């Protein structure tokens, strides 16, 4: 009857409505309402982001979301970036590709982070998804440039190829020449990760025919002279990564380069600048007017060089530098970049014991005074004080990401010789929006008491060489209501601490503990009590069998994984 029909909302309409929902949280809520809403949501879902590839299986995913076009997958625990995870640990993307090819052949986008990717997988991808458009590989490993050849050759609709910070075996630059002559759809090309020389003519032709190219990040083999030619061909670029920024230039060549940059009115992001020769840096000044992101983390600059450059970048929001700029360079940041929101200071040479350089609390302070909008910081330094941090967070109370790495493990406040507890206490008390925190320096359980008590929005916590007893970790697990990821290394937390989080872990994405005092029995107990968690112990060869050297705990609906290597003990 009409009246009945008008009461029920046609599914198709619901799906169309839900198609406009973009936020995963909203979608999640919507799917819980009732079965028909669940179905409408899942059928209209086009993008899905899996933060832990083992938390769900490919089959479950494709069954639930048959119409997805874009997938983002994260694999290994973050500490694999620092060589703490065996290379054969897992997170192989292949099974996912097979499932997608079977059920979601219209897949267009794939973003992988810390996954194991082989050339075979890349080839399989290139052949299986005719509409494939976007490939982004960050911190992955296992593939070579041969795999990229397949992508370039067969992905006719490719718009994005973004290869970043991967452990890729760079066999040759010939992959770039594999883009067919009629291929014009590229919008994003980032191969700064690779080192082999690419055929410049092929690159030139590619840039010339891809009129929609917005992002171009070349590798070191592309010289300044060549860069200038590319800029002339692509003045519409929004993001530019240069190659090697040094060459002996004549004045005429310099003028040409400067003019090329001058024509690039749309550049918002600049990176690369490898081996930057100071005298050529001014060439980029004309393009800096609209710059919002400047990545100098591979260009060791001095303080005055940085000052000169930053004077031309009044709209800078994000800045990555090396600590070669020193505190003085950071003062320049504070004075030149009032709109700065994110600062990352990387150590140029952290392993040299004999040479002390880098940045101190002074630099950070200077930035905090000059940049009140600062909310994201990653700071590697040699020394810090509680007082400085307290002042910094007073100046910038809106921190969402506060990652402080005092490079000498367990180092106290260098002025008072006290632990750095009060520093992080100040951070969590003042920065109510804090989502991510990395602590360092000498810390007792008090720091963790502060964190557990005050860090209401904290989602990710990284701890190293800190704490005095199980109590510290317990405080965090019993506080921090939004805690999602907890990574701990080299702390005196044992089984009691591990087990105190029994009820917490299912609401968290994952827990990592390495070089702590956890035993295999403790882990086993956890695994037994919490069947919906995967508890994995990674054994170091030389250690004693009862110690759990590395523990990785994560929630999953996929059950224990079946692809763990021999070094991983799944409990």
């Amino acid at each position, binding site marked *: 009857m009409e009246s009945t029909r008008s009461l029920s909302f046609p599914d198709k309409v619901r799906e169309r409505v839900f198609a406009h929902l973009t936020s995963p949280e909203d979608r999640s809520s919507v799917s819980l309402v009732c079965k028909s809403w669940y179905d409408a949501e899942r059928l209209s879902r086009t993008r899905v982001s899996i933060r832990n590839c083992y938390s769900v299986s490919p089959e479950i995913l494709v069954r639930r979301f048959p119409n997805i076009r874009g997938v983002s997958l994260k694999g290994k625990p973050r500490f694999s970036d620092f060589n703490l995870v065996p290379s054969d640990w897992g997170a192989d993307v292949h099974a996912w590709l097979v499932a997608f090819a079977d059920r979601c052949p219209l897949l267009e986008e794939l973003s992988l982070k810390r996954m194991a990717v082989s050339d075979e997988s890349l080839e399989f991808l290139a052949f299986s998804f005719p509409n494939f458009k976007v490939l982004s590989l960050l911190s992955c490993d296992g593939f070579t440039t041969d795999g990229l050849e397949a992508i370039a050759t067969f992905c006719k609709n490719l718009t994005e190829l973004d290869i970043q910070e991967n452990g890729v075996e760079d066999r040759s630059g010939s992959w770039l020449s594999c883009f067919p002559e009629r291929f014009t759809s590229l919008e994003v090309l980032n191969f700064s990760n690779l080192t082999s020389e690419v055929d410049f003519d092929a690159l030139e032709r590619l840039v010339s025919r891809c009129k929609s190219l917005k992002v171009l990040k070349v590798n070191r083999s592309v010289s300044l002279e060549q860069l200038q030619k590319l800029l002339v061909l692509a003045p519409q670029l929004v993001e530019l990564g240069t190659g090697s920024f040094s060459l002996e230039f004549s004045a005429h060549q310099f003028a040409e380069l400067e003019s090329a940059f001058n024509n690039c009115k749309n550049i918002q992001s600049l990176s690369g600048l490898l081996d930057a020769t100071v005298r050529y840096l001014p060439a980029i000044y004309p393009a800096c007017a609209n710059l919002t992101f400047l990545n100098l983390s591979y260009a060791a600059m001095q303080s005055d060089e940085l000052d000169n450059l930053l004077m031309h970048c009044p709209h800078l929001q994000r800045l990555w530098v090396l600590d070669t700029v020193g505190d003085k360079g950071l003062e320049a940041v504070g004075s030149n970049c009032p709109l700065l929101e994110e600062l990352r200071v990387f150590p140029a040479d952290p392993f*040299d014991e004999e040479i002390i350089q880098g940045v101190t609390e002074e630099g950070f302070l200077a930035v905090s005074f000059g940049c009140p909008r600062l909310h994201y910081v990653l700071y590697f330094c040699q020394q810090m004080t509680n007082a400085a941090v307290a002042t910094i967070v007073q100046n910038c109370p809106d921190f969402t990401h506060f990652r402080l790495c005092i490079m000498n493990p367990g180092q106290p406040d260098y002025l008072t010789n006290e632990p750095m507890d009060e520093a992080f206490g100040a951070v969590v008390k003042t920065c109510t929006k804090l989502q991510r925190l990395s602590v360092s320096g000498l810390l007792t359980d008090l720091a963790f008491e502060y964190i557990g008590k005050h860090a209401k929005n904290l989602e990710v916590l990284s701890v190293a060489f800190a704490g005095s007893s199980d109590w510290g970790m317990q405080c965090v697990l019993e506080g921090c209501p939004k805690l999602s990821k907890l990574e701990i290394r080299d702390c005196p937390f044992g089984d009691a601490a591990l087990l105190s989080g029994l009820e917490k872990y299912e609401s968290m994405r994952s827990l990592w503990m390495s070089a702590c005092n956890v035993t295999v029995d403790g882990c086993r107990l956890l695994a037994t009590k919490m069947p919906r968690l995967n508890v994995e112990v990674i054994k170091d060869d030389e250690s004693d069998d009862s110690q759990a050297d590395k523990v990785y705990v994560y929630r999953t609906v996929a059950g224990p994984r079946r692809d763990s290597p021999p070094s991983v003990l799944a409990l």
Partner: protein
Amino acid sequence: MSMPVEHDYIGFSLEVPSMENSGLNLKATELRLGLPGSESPERESSDDNNNKKKKGSAVVLSLKSLAGSGAKRGYSVAIDRKWVYSGNSGDGSDAVVPAAGLFSPTGAANNNGSKCVSGSDSGLCGPVLKEGGASQSPKPVVVAQEQKPHTHGSGPSKTQVVGWPPIRSFRKNTMSSHSAKNDDDSEAKLGLGCLYVKVSMDGAPYLRKVDLKTYGSYMELSSALEKMFTCFTLGKCGSDNVPSRDGSSESRLMDLIHGSEYVLTYEDKDGDWMLVGDVPWETTILWKGITKILQKEDRKQLTLLGFVYELTSPTRQSHQIAILLLMFTNSCKRLRIMKSSEAIGLAPRAMEKCRNRN
């Protein structure tokens, strides 16, 4: 004052250094810093044992050691060794780079080391590593690899902890591979040079490091060394010495170094101790000129050094200059301030070598 050395160092007094032992009695703390070609010696002095041990175990920045060992800055496939920082696998990539970037604003060249070292390392590391180089060089920090990472608290030294500081392997490898391959990419090597060498002084309890690249002449080098080692000499010169740069002999630094009892020597790649000054030091080199003019072989050597001078206008003899510069820098593995008395017989050899190379 006379000395059985006959030549004439550029920038140094024409007078030969004194051979007298002026009575500096450093017997108590006298350290023989090792015969040429020997391993980096253990520090025997009682004070600062720890520091010295650290220094001793740290990789000798001299080119020779870099050549021989997996340079401190080298990174091998870290994963295999579970090591943060391991020897270079020999792809010639090693430390970073940017030349100018390496000094702290306060400028004491010897205090900024960081990457520079690597800069030269990396160049060397590549091919030379495979040759097994001078086995004389001390083992790099890599030795510490055997230790497992500590659990907290004791604040293990940076180099002994896997995965600390938490920098992505990719970034570490990139920073260390800035001077990358030994093949033709001259641009990659530009601007990357630092040439750190260890400087030891007889009688001094510890060594220093200098970046040869920061000096424009032997004079400047000597004065810098003088400043560094002033504290170890008794009475001869105060800290208010301002070495004159015009090559005149009035400078007290020269008195110190050459006038009274110390001479500046360097150890070359053959392991011989040579007197500094034989090879002319030129600061005006046209880099591009070098890369064009030099034969591939020489270029490779220059690359190996990772050594670059800023350019000024080319001189007519840039080619020659370049070669000579190469010779000195190529040769210089370590600088040593020796007592004049021990420097007998060095100079003639240096002259000979110089002649041979020319």
